[in-house]
């Protein structure tokens, strides 16, 4: 009986992995197991498709989450899952790499898509060369392991009344790494990854004050502001929470509107899953036009105000 | 014959490119347009050990070869001709005469701080009435007790406003013609040394070029560089090596013109195609690339001769002649490839065109280069 395991640091990602795991399990006639953090109700994941939930105990003060690696590894040696999907957060990536080493398993990092081949092996896609290429890999398992970035898969749907088992896991062994302090990130009021419409600014903007133009456009559309890397990292006109790209946020809005964004491959990697991509840039040869559904080659300082007016008219109607 | 650059030379080129991306390119336009002297860059050049490349470690230099120096000048000039030239003028014109003709005392006192980048150097030979005819200068130096007293004026002196020391050429014995000229070390701030107005130039606009006045400027007897009457020889030998430096600068400018033209040809679309698909543009690029390659090999070969201890005067002249004429010719073609946008300030090729011209003139005009080359063959 194939076992498909999922582990993620938070509920949202666990539900996404459960969605993918359920698909795989159905095709392989297998069972799904999910890990639940200390204090998280295991029933929740059972409702969302897990046949088994492995419940961690509460993590003691001063212990890093990674101290559970030996516990997970022992469990995997005991139960031999066929597939193990792990949410690709910082901690998830470290845990996955260390588990893969302990289990002598192959690990596909940053899996952006997967399918089963005729033999029931997972063929997984991931990006290479800064987003310019797609590599397809197969893992020698078991388990076949992958880390999966957030929002790669659709979350599982709840099935109230589903049954499943809960297994409590032991406390982790002593770990040489101590956590001395944790400073939670100051969350901005908006999470750009949740936005349905994003207006993104790039180097085509002449000065910081011009971000206001993008804000006006975003307001008319009911969207949020994002930016390309130089705007956040070098110019610091916007916080790094809203920088979209291969090493920034990856978003899947219904509409992405890039103004003065050239469209380097590292940025496109962050927005490639948008439903509609619209670009405004005065350089007809800007790479973004290759990646866009709609484009206007023109000076954003003339086009955007007209666009704002036309949108206001159209949306009032 | 091994045409490959050593790993060290390749690493040097890589490090200069990284340096340019980080520090030089971002300010190149403002250096040209304000214009302003990139003083902060000069400080960083010193930290990279680039202000005394071919001079011995015991005098604060890097103890490397002339080819390394040429690569640094080439790459800096490719990003910003002002920066490349500031380094070249300092290294070739100010440091060389001190290295070749200075006493131990003089080397310790002046060459060492120059090589370490503690101060910049300058070279004052040209006068309003003495350009190519360098021996026609009227600046005089008279020995009065323990001091030389200098009187006269110099023009087009690069780095003068920021130099810590200037090598000044003056007539010590009018009756002896070229053998009556001597070289002197004049520290900045010496009473009687006045730096005049900055000259408003067509290109290399960030480089500081000024008139220099000597009005009863008194310097210690020990500040005579080389022997009395050796000045003309010192100037000519210095300029020989300087030619290789200018060839490197011109090479960098021409390479930049080629890079910009290739980039633009691939991106600019007219009649539904990138202009690089049209033969007219292809031929311009082919000519440009061929001449840049030729400039490169003439320049590197001249540097190689210098490093091998072989005669290099003719080779240096050929390199400067060809590289400078290539730079002016090809920056002109580069603007043509760009069309209208090439004429607009802020487009790199507009700056390159203006920067290129001086390479045919200073440190020996192209006419002088031809005289040197012909002289070497026909005498």
């Amino acid at each position, binding site marked *: 009986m194939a076992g498909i395991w999922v582990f993620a640091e938070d509920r949202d990602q666990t539900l996404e992995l459960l969605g993918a795991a359920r698909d795989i399990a159905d095709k392989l006639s297998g069972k799904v197991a999910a890990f639940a953090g200390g204090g998280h109700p295991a029933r929740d994941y059972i409702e969302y498709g897990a046949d088994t939930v492995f419940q961690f105990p509460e993590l003691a003060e001063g212990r890093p989450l990674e101290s559970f690696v030996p516990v997970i590894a022992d469990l995997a040696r005991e139960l031999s899952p066929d597939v193990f999907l792990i949410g690709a957060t910082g901690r998830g990536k470290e845990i996955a790499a260390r588990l893969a080493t302990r289990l002598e398993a192959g690990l596909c990092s940053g899996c952006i898509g997967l399918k089963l081949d005729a033999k029931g092996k997972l063929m997984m896609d991931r990006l290479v060369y800064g987003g310019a290429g797609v590599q397809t890999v197969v893992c020698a398992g078991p388990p076949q392991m992958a880390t999966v970035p957030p929002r790669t898969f659709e979350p599982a749907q709840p099935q109230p009344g589903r049954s499943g088992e809960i297994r409590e896991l032991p406390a982790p062994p002593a770990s040489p790494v101590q956590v001395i302090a*944790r400073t939670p990130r100051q969350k901005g009021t908006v999470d750009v990854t949740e936005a349905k419409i994003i207006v993104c600014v790039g180097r085509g903007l002449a000065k910081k004050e011009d971000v206001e133009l993008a804000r006006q456009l975003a307001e008319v559309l009911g969207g949020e502001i994002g930016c390309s890397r130089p705007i956040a990292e070098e110019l610091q006109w916007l916080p790094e929470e809203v920088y979209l790209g291969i090493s920034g946020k990856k978003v899947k809005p219904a509409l992405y509107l890039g103004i003065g964004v050239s469209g380097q491959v590292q940025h496109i990697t962050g927005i490639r899953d948008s*439903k509609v991509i619209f670009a405004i840039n005065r350089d007809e040869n800007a790479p973004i036009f290759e990646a866009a559904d709609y484009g*206007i080659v023109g000076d954003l300082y003339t086009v955007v105000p007209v666009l704002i007016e036309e949108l206001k008219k159209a949306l009032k109607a | 014959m091994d045409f490959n650059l050593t790993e060290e030379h390749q690493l040097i080129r890589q*490090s200069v490119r990284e340096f340019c991306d980080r520090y030089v390119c971002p300010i190149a336009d403002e250096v040209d347009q304000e214009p302003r002297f990139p003083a902060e860059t000069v400080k960083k050049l010193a930290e990279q050990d680039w202000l005394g490349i071919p001079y011995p470690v015991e005098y604060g230099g890097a*103890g490397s070869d002339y080819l390394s120096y040429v690569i640094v000048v080439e790459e800096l000039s490719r990003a910003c001709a002002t920066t490349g030239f500031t380094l070249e003028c300092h290294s070739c014109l100010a440091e060389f005469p001190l290295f070749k003709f200075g006493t131990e005392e003089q080397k310790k006192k002046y060459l060492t701080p120059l090589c370490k980048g503690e101060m910049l150097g300058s070279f004052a030979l040209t006068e309003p009435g003495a350009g190519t005819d360098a021996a026609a200068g009227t600046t005089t130096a008279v020995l009065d007790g323990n001091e030389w007293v200098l009187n006269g004026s110099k023009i087009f002196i690069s780095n003068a406003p920021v130099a810590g020391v200037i090598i000044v050429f003056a007539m010590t014995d009018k009756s002896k013609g070229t053998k009556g000229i001597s070289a002197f070390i004049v520290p900045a701030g010496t009473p009687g040394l006045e730096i005049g107005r900055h000259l408003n130039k067509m290109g290399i606009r960030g480089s500081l070029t000024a008139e220099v006045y000597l009005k009863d400027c008194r310097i210690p007897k020990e500040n005579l560089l080389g022997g009395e009457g050796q000045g003309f020889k010192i100037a000519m030998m210095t300029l020989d090596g300087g030619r290789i430096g200018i060839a490197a600068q011109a090479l960098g400018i021409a390479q930049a013109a080629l890079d910009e033209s290739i980039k633009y040809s691939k991106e600019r679309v007219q009649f539904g195609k990138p202009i690089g698909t049209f033969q007219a543009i292809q031929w311009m690029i082919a000519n440009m690339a061929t001449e840049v390659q030729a400039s490169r090999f003439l320049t590197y070969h001249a540097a190689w001769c210098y490093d091998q201890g072989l005669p290099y005067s003719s080779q240096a002249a050929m390199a400067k002649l060809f590289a400078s004429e290539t730079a002016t010719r090809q920056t002109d073609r580069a603007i043509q490839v760009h069309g209208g946008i090439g004429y607009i300030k802020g487009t790199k090729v507009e700056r390159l065109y203006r920067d290129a011209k001086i390479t045919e003139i200073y440190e020996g005009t192209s006419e002088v280069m031809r005289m040197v080359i012909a002289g070497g063959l026909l005498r």
Partner: protein
Amino acid sequence: MLNIVACFKWVVDDADIRVDTGSRKLNVDKAAYKISAYDRNAIEEAVILQEKHGGRVVAVTVAPPGAKPCLKDSLSRGPDSACFINDPCCADLEPSQTAQILARAISSKMDYDLIICGEGSGDIYAQQVGPALAERLGIPCLTWVNKLSCNVDERRIIAERKLEDGVEVVSAPLPVLVVVLPDINAPRIPSLKQVLGAAKKPVENVLLEDLGSIPGARLLTTDVVAATMDRRRIKFPADADGVREAVNALLREGVVS
């Protein structure tokens, strides 16, 4: 005094990658190679710690023999010596193999207090070798670190990890492996003296076969193609009519309401 190992990889410069539009294959034939940008941060951090606490830095890489120019490049950035584990098959290793090979070489040939790795390689960016290597060596691992300090007397590292939910300050005893983020430092540009000095620094050449049989691959690549985006690429003129048409197109798409 600290014995520090900095791991680095010699990778293709992405700017040189060409796409064959017919087959969608990526062509790296004309590509130049360089030390992966993330690894420059690792080397720089190692050198910064060595300058502060004394000791030695060894730069280690697993690469095909043709990558030899990487050694002087790495040495010009500050390490005292380099270790070149090489074999033609090293061009095609997957992360678990690289980690095993590094573990064998490091444990058999070096004393170390600290191993520093970049957050991922510039080409494949699997982000596995650091933690996998730590696991092989049986030492603790601190990942995604953008601030690092060492108390040599107490033999402890204190590090700040930048994670999605905030900053986690951690501490671990030496020996330890640290995976650093690019914002931990700005790698210095090698000075001329550093470049010239690189040739004088020792390099240990290690043949892969001397480390035992090559570990089997656990991850197999079946294909690599250019990433494409099939988009409509419809353009509107920049005048008032064009903008109006664009707005209508967005309304039709149902993405604006």
